């Protein structure tokens, strides 16, 4: 399938922000892997996933995010998310992703670590 997603990595106040644009599905796997490697190469304070530009996340996308959380936990790296629509926020809660990935309402909050999950 063609990839309908792209990622970009930027640093902000010691936090690596991964902008996830488009669909988070099987087609996003390579892009997310690359972005993760790029985001974590300089040992950031935390990684924040920006879903503002994301329109669709399916169960394969959830599995990819689970993979990122697992990697972050392995490194003791806080992982955060922001820009989720109410629907995907609900899905993150139903799947308990929200227990391991701090969901922030916006980028500022995410970068400054407010509202961080205690379990994360």
């Amino acid at each position, binding site marked *: 399938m063609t990839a309908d997603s792209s990622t970009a990595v930027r640093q902000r106040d010691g936090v690596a922000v991964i902008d996830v644009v488009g669909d988070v599905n099987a087609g996003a796997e390579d892009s997310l892997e690359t972005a993760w490697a790029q985001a974590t190469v300089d040992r950031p304070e935390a990684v924040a996933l920006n879903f503002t530009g994301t329109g669709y996340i399916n*169960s394969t996308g959830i*599995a990819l995010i689970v993979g990122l959380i*697992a990697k972050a*936990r392995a490194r003791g790296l806080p992982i955060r998310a922001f820009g989720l629509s109410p*629907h995907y926020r*609900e*899905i993150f809660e139903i799947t308990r992703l929200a227990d391991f990935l701090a969901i922030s309402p916006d980028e500022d909050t995410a970068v400054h670590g407010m509202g961080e999950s205690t379990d994360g």
Partner: protein
Amino acid sequence: MTTLTGSLRRRFGRTNALARVPAATAVADSDEVPPVDIAANDPLLAFLQSANGPVDVEALELDSPALAELKLAGVKLAVPLVSQGELIGVLNLGPRRSEQEYSTDDRKLLDNLAAQAAPALRVGQLVRQQQAEARTRERFEQELEVARLIQKNFLPRELPELSGWHVAAYYQPAREVGGDFYDVIPLADGEVGFVIGDVTDKGVPAALVMAATRSVLRAFAQRLTDPGAVLRQVNEHLCPDMPEKMFVTCFYGVLEPTTGRFRFANAGHDVPYVKTAEGSVELRARGMPLGLMPGMSYEEKELVLHPGDSLLLHSDGIVEAHNPAREMFGFPRLMAAVAEYPGGADVIDRVLSDVRAHTGPEAEQEDDITMVTVQRSASSRDPERMLAEFEVASVEGNERLALDRVAEAVAALDLSQPRLDRLKTAVGEATMNAMEHGNSYREDQPVRVRVLHGEELVHVLITDRGEIPQVGTAEEPDLEAKLAGLQTPRGWGLYLIKNMVDEFREITDADGHTLELTMRLGGDDDR
């Protein structure tokens, strides 16, 4: 005279004494002569009928083929055998062995013998005649029983239970079983075929043609979707083997229970009626009866049966039922009855009662009577309406097509944004599940999606070719186990579906494997 008794027994064994009078022939010096039948219009017959005692054949002058034959056979004396004024046979005698003429005493003796033998002979004839008639009746009854059995075995044993519909049928063969038949055929995609037909002729021949028609129609109904095409093919198959002067009238319609859409074609059968809110409507479509000639085409029409509408298929045993004045029940009466009476099984009872009132209670049913009614429920709980039906190829990513089309289909419904989003996610996941697990991502095996609008709810049915239930075998996702590497990171699909919709059901049947998602309209958005 020696062969007289034997000849009498043999000759008078025949039963056609009234039309052709057999003449027992006993001729001296010739024990066996050909029997002589006297034709009904032969003047000899009238002569013997009125003769007073034995008749001297040689002296008789008549323009009679039978007389010539008797003379040729050497018959000298013909003794009429008369019982109750009716000539039932003739005793023919050849020359006496003594070569003397028959004396007056001989003739008197023979006359007395004939007077005594004739009634006994008549009794014997009547007994034989009755025995033969009894055998004929028995054969006829046996044939009727065979015809009844064939008919009975080729009629549906039970009628389908269709949600939101009531189907009823009545079939009563006449004593001489006719060729009526009806059928209800489950088809693909939940559609149902309804058939009513009538074979010309009666008894076993009609029953056999009926059985053949039904079987051929059933086979084509499964292969072709258009009723007109089905009848065309049935006609092509029946034509070569149809007995002379026989044909089949047949109406065939296909109902889509979810929408009420009814497509039909008619091969010269009596026009069915639909009771609607506005009155009776005739379902007319042009087409020749089946089996008459090949290459026929059948016009196809359609209508929607709305809630409360009731379709009546019927056979000519109703409209052609006569009253004592030989007036037929007729189409106008039946059409008026359909408009006036409640639909469904009620109309069957009421029409039967009207037909009996028309013919008189003692009248024997002239022809088979068959009625099938298909009524759409008028209750507040309407049957579901199909909003969309489509297929997507089993190609990774195509779940987006499915969820977008479902969203489009339900756009006009009272579904809040959060609930619409949940439905879309569930549809996407169910479609992925179907493409991957049901169809192994084989592009030539599409996933079928149907969107149905019922009362206060929407149903989405997603069907794949898989035959194995998946829900029971799926592992409940445990995020901690996944993060610990004890479970695959994947496996969220069914979990998401279950949590996104109000109800979730897995169906495995002949159509394949279906996930049925139910979302109530105007439901609570809070979680």
